[in-house]
């Protein structure tokens, strides 16, 4: 197979990532959660084990041109639908080693022995939501019965690290009263493989949205994250916070980005009923590309067409960092608009700064790809 020429169908023969929402139900009622309000189709049932198995088969068939498929379970809380998770892991195991891998975004409060065992069996990459210490975490992340969750989440994390081979990314939501520097510092105290803290995804009117001053601090804190990344690269360490890695590597490779991400193309979203969208984070605005029960050629073609039709806005055409951004996340831009644009621009500027810092010794940057 030819090495991928990075072009419009960037790296399409390498890896696909499929966000699968096996349920929109969740046992938590986080104050800032956007799912209830904008994503979850009302009263949609959970994905059945049979449909979960079909999903694995359909992805294998639909992405015949791709070497590897990462199924990223999402929701709702995916651990609240263990039968679907179990069915997917078992089905994927019937394919050659390396064909499928798994990731899961979880609130970490339903870590039953069976759940832990399945995560280990599927060698999941776990994205675990931990906002901060208990007073910070529990003020936003509580159960339907208003119970605190921090202690349970930390127990889940420790169990994952002790009893499984899973890699764990800690993810923290930055909001009014809880800064990026505080969130990053907290995550660095935990036994995590990677970390990421990011501003809350909400409109500016909400109570937890960053104030103007906090937003400026957020941008300054991003600079500090960039400084830390430079220090870690200098020491030959893989940065714990990898938010700049893809863009720095893009600069190193000297190529232009042709789309913000792989949505519609090398990335798709699947709802519990099997309907397929470019990304599950797009909510109701997402066009339905097809259904898992249909001929995969249909939804693959629809996805590629949607991706090609999704071009940056006219405003973006004059932006100096367009080649590193290509218009921003199609799921987040409609909600966060200017602030998201500003954050993305800042991320790009910092990536450029990191790249320039190592211009005299660019092989050092290969650590961002795990090459040390």
């Amino acid at each position, binding site marked *: 197979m*030819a090495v991928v020429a990075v072009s419009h169908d960037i790296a399409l023969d390498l890896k696909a990532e499929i966000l699968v929402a096996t349920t929109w139900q969740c046992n938590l009622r986080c104050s800032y959660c956007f799912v209830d309000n904008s994503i979850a189709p009302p009263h949609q049932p959970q994905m059945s084990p049979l449909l979960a198995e079909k999903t694995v088969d359909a992805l294998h068939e639909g992405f015949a041109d791709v070497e590897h498929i990462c199924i990223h379970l999402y929701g709702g809380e995916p651990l609240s639908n263990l039968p679907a998770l179990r069915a997917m892991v078992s089905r994927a195991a019937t394919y050659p080693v390396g064909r499928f891998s798994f990731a899961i975004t979880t609130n970490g409060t339903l870590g039953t022995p069976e759940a832990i065992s399945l995560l280990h069996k599927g060698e999941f990459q776990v994205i675990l939501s931990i906002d901060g210490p208990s007073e910070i975490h529990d003020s936003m992340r509580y159960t339907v019965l208003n119970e605190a969750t921090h202690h349970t989440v930390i127990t889940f994390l420790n169990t994952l690290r002790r009893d499984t081979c899973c890699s764990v990314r800690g993810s923290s939501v930055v909001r009014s009263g809880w800064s990026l520097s505080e969130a990053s510092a907290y995550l660095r105290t935990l036994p995590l493989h990677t970390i990421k803290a990011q501003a809350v995804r909400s409109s500016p009117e909400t109570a937890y949205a960053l104030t103007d001053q906090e937003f400026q601090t957020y941008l300054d804190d991003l600079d500090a994250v960039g400084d830390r990344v430079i220090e870690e690269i200098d020491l030959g360490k893989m940065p714990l916070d990898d938010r700049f890695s893809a863009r720095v590597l893009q600069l190193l490779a000297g190529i232009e980005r042709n789309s913000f991400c792989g949505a519609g193309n090398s990335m798709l979203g699947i709802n519990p009923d099997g309907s397929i969208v470019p990304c599950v984070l797009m909510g109701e605005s997402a066009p339905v590309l097809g259904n898992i029960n249909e001929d995969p050629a249909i939804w693959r073609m629809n996805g590629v067409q949607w991706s090609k039709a999704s071009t940056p806005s006219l405003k973006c055409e004059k932006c100096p960092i367009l080649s590193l951004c290509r218009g921003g996340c199609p799921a987040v831009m409609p909600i966060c608009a200017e602030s998201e644009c500003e954050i993305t621009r800042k991320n790009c500027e910092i990536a450029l700064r990191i790249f320039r810092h190592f211009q005299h010794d660019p092989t050092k940057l290969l650590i961002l790809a795990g090459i040390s």
Partner: protein
Amino acid sequence: MPEKKSRSELQRQKDLILRALTDPKFRTLLQENPVKALEISKLTSETKKEIRFILAAVKGINTQISALADQLLCVTGGGGGCGIA
């Protein structure tokens, strides 16, 4: 047990990865005519293995570049989407 590479060998390998990543002509030559690309007289099994590694590394980097993980939920890149689970 695999043989441990010396520091200079590792650096040479990284230089080759970087060149293959940034120079499409060299990358193509490495695939199609590795003897010429590496200016060597003979292709040993060890060299073939190294070339496979270099090309795999470049493919991996290109995948990582394409899988931009700007949102918390995005797992690759790191990783994929927005993290409010």
